Structure formats: structure tokens, C-alpha cells
């Protein structure tokens, strides 16, 4: 009788423990049980697209489903007259599209049309969003010059740094300086060149010593002549 009672108690305890585990597993927030009920709302896809690009364009597409929705299943995009690309969503509803620019030096641009949309796990398909954008050939330079208006100046005496980029074009150049006694280049300004490719800037400093300056063409850093020769100015 006593033995039977112990067995009964043990059985009750096992049932209770397993019961608690079973209930907690069922209500666990990490449960992968598919959602139930209807979902009538399609997801929404957004992009970081720009109107134009210099060099290859990379467009990120991100999709999100409605609150309480079944989640995003697929992201689609179609570029120009090509076929529709499919991205099956895993852990993140994001994909990107890279559109190659015309070859460097061709000075050409190409206009493209991209459509993108998503589908949720219920089967709702979003209306397409269509955008037009231009991809321009990356600019290139063959020469970037830098001159100084003086090789020696007094502290706080202004001097001019100027140069030209070839072939002439409106583009950005970054001027970099190296303080006396340091080895690190720091960008201190970015200038947009004139149509002729010319640029200039006045500079002054109270820090005495020999300063080094150079300019860089930042839009296509690997192209020939994208860094100017170094010029030095001694501040007394």
C-alpha cells in the first residue's frame, strides 16, 4: 500500500514536470509554429535608390510585413527588360542589386529602370514600385597638380594651394595635410573643381615647422594620377 502510494506520487510528479515543460514550449515566444488566421495586407519594400550614380550603383532593397502579418517570404526585382530576380528571405528581408557603370573613360551614362516588390508568407503580393536612375561612367584623371604660393611663410600668414585636374571636369578633390613631426595624413578640406579642372584654397596656420600637402581625386581613387605630388611649406 505504502509502495503504491510512492509510485502514485512519482507519477504525479512526472506528469506535473512534463506538463509544465509542454505548456512552456507551446507558449514559448521562440516557437516556430506558423501563424494562423488570414493576412490580407501585402508587405512593403523600400530602397535607398538615388537619381544618379557615378561608378557602379548598389541599390539596397528592404522589405517589411505588416504588424501581425505572416512575414516576408520573397523579394523580387526586375531591371530594365531583364527577367525577374527572386530573393528568398531567410533571416533578414534585405537584398541588394548592383548595376555596373559604363566602362571608365567612356564618359557615357546609362539610364535604367528598376521595379521591386515583395510577397509575404501568406501569399500577398505587393504592387510594384518602379524607379528610374542613371549610372554614369566613373570619372578618371591622368594628372592632378598642386602648387603653393610660397615655400616659406610666417605663422598665421595665409598662403594658397592650387592645382588642376586633367582631363578637366567638375569633380571633387580632397586636400590632405601632414603636421610637422607627424606621419599621418588628414583631410582638411574637399573642393569641387571648376569645369576646367582648376581648384584652389587659402590656408594659414600658427603651428611652426614644415607642413606637407597633397590632394587626392576621391571619385575614382585607383585611376591613374589620382594623387598629386607632395608640396611642403615651412611655417616660421
Amino acid at each position, binding site marked *: 500500500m505504502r509502495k503504491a502510494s510512492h509510485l502514485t506520487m512519482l507519477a504525479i510528479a512526472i506528469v506535473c514536470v512534463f506538463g509544465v515543460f509542454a505548456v512552456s514550449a507551446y507558449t514559448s515566444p521562440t516557437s516556430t509554429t506558423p501563424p494562423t488566421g488570414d493576412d490580407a495586407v501585402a508587405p512593403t519594400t523600400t530602397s535607398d535608390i538615388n537619381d544618379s550614380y557615378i561608378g557602379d550603383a548598389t541599390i539596397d532593397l528592404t522589405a517589411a510585413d505588416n504588424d501581425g502579418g505572416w512575414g516576408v517570404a520573397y523579394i*523580387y526585382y526586375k531591371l530594365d527588360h531583364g*527577367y525577374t*530576380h527572386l530573393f*528568398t528571405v531567410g533571416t533578414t528581408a534585405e537584398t541588394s542589386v548592383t548595376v555596373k557603370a559604363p566602362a571608365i573613360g567612356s564618359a557615357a551614362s546609362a539610364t535604367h529602370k528598376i521595379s521591386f516588390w515583395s*510577397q509575404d508568407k*501568406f*501569399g500577398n503580393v505587393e504592387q510594384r514600385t518602379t524607379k528610374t536612375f542613371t549610372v554614369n561612367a566613373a570619372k578618371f584623371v591622368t594628372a592632378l597638380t598642386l602648387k603653393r604660393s610660397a615655400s616659406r611663410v610666417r605663422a598665421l600668414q595665409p598662403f594658397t594651394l592650387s592645382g588642376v585636374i586633367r582631363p578637366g571636369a567638375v569633380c571633387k578633390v580632397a586636400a590632405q595635410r601632414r603636421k610637422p613631426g607627424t606621419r599621418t595624413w588628414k583631410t582638411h578640406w574637399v573642393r569641387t573643381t571648376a569645369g576646367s579642372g582648376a581648384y584652389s584654397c587659402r590656408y594659414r596656420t600658427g603651428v611652426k615647422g614644415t607642413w606637407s600637402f597633397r590632394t587626392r581625386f576621391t571619385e575614382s581613387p585607383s585611376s591613374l594620377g589620382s594623387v598629386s605630388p607632395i608640396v611642403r611649406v615651412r611655417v616660421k
Partner: protein
Amino acid sequence: MSDKSISRRKFLVGAGAVLGAASVSGLALANRPSAARAAGAALPWPYIGLDAEAVARRAYEVYYASGCAEATWWPIVEALAAANPDTWGTLPKNVFKFGGGGVGGWGTVCGTLNGSSAIIAMTGASGKLTDAAMQYYAETPLPTNGIDKAVRAGWAPVAGLPTPLPNVPTSTAHSQLCHASLSQWAMTTGAGDGSREQKDRCAKACYDMAFKTVTMLNAWHADPANVPTVTLDSSIAACQTACHTTPIAKGKMACDSCHDQTPDHASVQ
């Protein structure tokens, strides 16, 4: 004794077989339309409102036996036959089997549109319904996966047929052609021709087109004012009306579904 008994059994079996054959052939004859009935069955034939979902599910099933055109045609015929034995009831199965794969596998018009257009015409409904079916097929992301709802509710196709794959990727064909629309879907999904996925897509397209057809027919036959609005693709006006006035053949199909020239192509050297 034993021989006698066997002989009796044989006799009974033989007699049963004769009687069975007679009754089957009798039934077959009874189901056959008489010449008078067939002669009197001029189109259009009567239409009664149908359960679009039930017809669409049947279309999914019929696809696996008889292809897409028959799958969009026969389930509607079958549903109308019971109430109309002298008209719809006279039609045999598989009349539209020829239309599978864009007519005998030629990849021309999608069989679902062939079957759907035939039914629409046979009921005497407005040709605008055919236009709407054509446009729906070309401009809707298909398959809609609408059959998923039925599966989730516990429906399953008849034994031996594949269960619909859940929530498959969709594609918009921008074409009524079997070849173009199926290729578009296949290139998007990477599924091969003849694969389980491709057959699932086409079976679901039958579901979708049967559902659309019955929904339109129900609405039109309830009130002929229920004519769907169809706006033809803008490329038609741009090409056929603006420039190609003659001698090209006219059509309602989007020009740019096959031709990818820009509108200014005549002036581009």
C-alpha cells in the same frame, strides 16, 4: 456433382456478365444525346451560378490528368451538366486536351485562356470577359497561391495527386503565351520545365483562371451590366495607333511583351 455445380456457377457468372454488359451499354446509350437533342443545342447554352472555389479546386485536379486547357474548361462543363443534360451534359471529356502546353506543346496561347475563352463564348457572355481573362492572366502575379487557403482549411486533392506546394514564388507574365509566361516564371524561380514545381505552378494557374472565369460568369449572368473594365496595355496605343497603322496585324496583346524597341526606334539610326 462438382462439375455440375461449377457449370451452374459458370452459367450464373456468364449470365451476370451478359446482363451487366447489357445494362452498361444501355446506360451509355441513354447518356448519348439523341440527334434531335444535339441538333437543338444551339449556342449559347444556359448558365447557372457556380461555386467558383469548388470549380477551381477541380481545375487543379484535372490539370494533372488532362492538361491546362481541359482543366479550365471541363470542371465548368461538369458543374453545369447536372442541371443541363441536353446541352452541357452532352459534351465528352478531354475535348480541350489538345490545348495543353499552348496547343499541343507549341507554347502559343496558354491553355487556361483557351479553356476559359471557350466557356465564356459558349454561355453567350460578353467578349469583354474574354478580354478580362486575357489581361488577368498577363498582368497578375501568378500563381496567386489562392489554393493555399483551401489547403490550410483541410482540403486535399483526390488521392494520388500532389498536394499544392505552399506559397510558391509568383511572376507576372505580361504575355498570354504559354512559352513566354512559363519561361518568365521559370527564370524567376529557377525551376525546370517538367519539374514538380512547374507542374504545381501550372495546376495553380488552372485554379486561378477557373476561379476568375467562374467569378466573372457569375457576375455577368446575374446582371449583364457587370462587364469588367479592361484597359489595354499602353504599348498598343503607342505602337499600333501612333505609328504602325498599316500594314501590321492588329491585336490586343501588349506589343512590348515581344518587341523591346523604344518608342523612338524609327528615328534612331
